[in-house]
C-alpha cells in the first residue's frame, strides 16, 4: 500500500515537473534556433572555397538531460508491448537540438561564420543504483570557420 502511494507520487511528480521542464525547454530551443539561424551548421566534411583561408577550430556543445520517473514508467510499459517510445523520442530530440545550440553559441563567441562537419555522440549516464532512472548525454561537435584579416586579403586576391 505504502509502496503504491510512493509509486503514484513519483509518477505524478515526474509527469508534472517533466512536462513543465520539457515545454519550457522547447520554447527556449525554438527561440534560440531562430536567433542563431544565420550561423550555418553543415554536415559537409570540407568547407567550400569561400572559407578556404578561414582559420578553423573545434567547437563542441554537450548537454545532459535526466529522464523523469514518468518517462521511465512509460518507456517500461512500451518495453512490454513494443512500439515507438515517444517519451524518449522527445527527450533525445531536445538533447540533440540543445547540443547544436550550445555548439553554435561557442562558435558565435569565437566569431565563426559557419560550422562544418557536424557530428553527434550520444551516451547514457548513470543508472541511479539500478533504478532504471538515468540521464542521456548528447555531444555535438564540428569545425568552426573563423575569418582572419590575413585570409580576408587572400580571399580578395583570389576573387581578383
Amino acid at each position, binding site marked *: *500500500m505504502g*509502496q*503504491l502511494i510512493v*509509486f503514484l507520487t513519483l*509518477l505524478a511528480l515526474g*509527469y508534472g515537473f517533466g*512536462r513543465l521542464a520539457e515545454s519550457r525547454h*522547447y520554447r527556449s530551443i*525554438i527561440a534560440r*534556433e*531562430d536567433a*542563431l*539561424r*544565420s*550561423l*550555418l*551548421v553543415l554536415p*559537409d*566534411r*570540407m*568547407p*567550400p*572555397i*569561400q572559407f*578556404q583561408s578561414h582559420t578553423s577550430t573545434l567547437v563542441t556543445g554537450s548537454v545532459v538531460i535526466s529522464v523523469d*520517473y*514518468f*518517462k*521511465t*514508467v*512509460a518507456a*517500461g*510499459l*512500451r*518495453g*512490454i*508491448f513494443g512500439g515507438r517510445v*515517444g*517519451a524518449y*523520442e*522527445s527527450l*533525445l*530530440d*531536445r538533447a*540533440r537540438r540543445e547540443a547544436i545550440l550550445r555548439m553554435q553559441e561557442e562558435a558565435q563567441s569565437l566569431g565563426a561564420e*559557419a560550422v562544418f562537419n557536424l557530428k553527434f555522440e550520444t551516451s547514457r549516464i548513470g543508472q541511479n543504483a539500478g*533504478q*532504471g532512472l538515468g540521464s542521456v548525454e548528447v555531444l555535438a561537435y564540428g569545425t568552426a570557420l573563423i575569418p582572419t584579416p590575413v585570409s580576408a586579403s587572400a580571399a580578395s586576391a583570389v576573387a581578383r
Partner: protein
Amino acid sequence: MSVPPLHNHEPNHEPRQSAPLPKGNPKLPEQINNRNEHPLKDFLLLAGALLALMFILTLLLGWSAQWLGPKIPYSWESRWFSSAPEAVSGALQPSTQDTHAADTARQQALQQLLDNLLSQQSAPLKVRLHWLAHEDPPNAFATLGGHIFVTRGLLTQVTSENALAMVLAHEYAHVEQRHPITLALEQLALSLLGSVIGSEGAASMIGQHTSLLTLLSFSRDMERSADQRALEILQSHYGHSAGADEFFRNMLNQHDESRWALMFQTHPLTSERLQQISQAGSATVPVTTSQLTPLPALLQLNDGADSKEAQIPQP
C-alpha cells in the same frame, strides 16, 4: 588532362566549387522527432492494457491453483511439510522449564479440543496444533501441512469454549478446504508471471499490485467459506452455533474498520463476518448464553478485571 578515376574514395582535398551556401539553417518541422501527442494518452492506454492483462492472467492462474490445490492428496502435503515452519516454531521455545510444562499442557488441551470438535466429522484430516506462548496479538492461522497456530493473545479474547472452538474450526476448515496449498500454488504462479513481466521496475509494479488486489479477493472468499464450514462443525458438535461471534465481536469493539480498507485486507470485514454468523444462527433454534460451554481451566487466560484493562496491540 588524364581521365579521372571512376571510384575515387580518396578524400577530395580541393575546395568545393559548386552549390552556393544557404542563407541560414533550415527551420525543420517540429513534429518529426517530437510527435505532438499527449504523453498521458499513450501512458493510460498502455497502463490500462497491462492492468487488464494482469487481471485476466491472475484470475486464470488463481483458478488453476484453486482447481489444482484440492487435487493434491493431503498425505503428500503433510509429508512435504511435516515439520512446522522454522520461523514460527522459533517462537515456541519457552524461556524456563516451568512455563514449558504449562505450554505443553495448553497445546495438548487445544489439540484435544480440536479433536473433540472433529470427532463428529467423517474422516477428519490429521492436523497439528501449535501454541505460540509469547505472541500477544490475538491470532490463529493455518499453514501448509496441516499446522495450526494459536497465539496467547487469542485466549485472552475468549471467555467460552464455543468462541475458541469457532476459531479452531475456522482454521481447520482452511486446512480441509486446502487453502494453504492453493495459496502457495497461486504465489508460485504469480512469481513466475512476475519474472515474465520482467524487472522493469515500474512496469512490474503495476502488474504486482493488480495481481495482489485480485488475489486478495480470492483469499477473502476463502475466509468466508471457512467461516461457513466452521459454523457447520460447531453446529454438529454443540448442536448450535452460539458463542461463535464472541471473538469477532471483541475484535470489532477494539478496532474500527472502514469499508474502504476492505480492498486491501486479506480478511473480510469483521462486521460482515458477524452478520454471516448471526444469519447462520437465526436459521437454527434460538440460543441463550446459558448453553455456552465454559473454557477448560487450563485455557482460561481471560480472568475478569485483568483482561478488561489489557490493551491489545493491533494485529
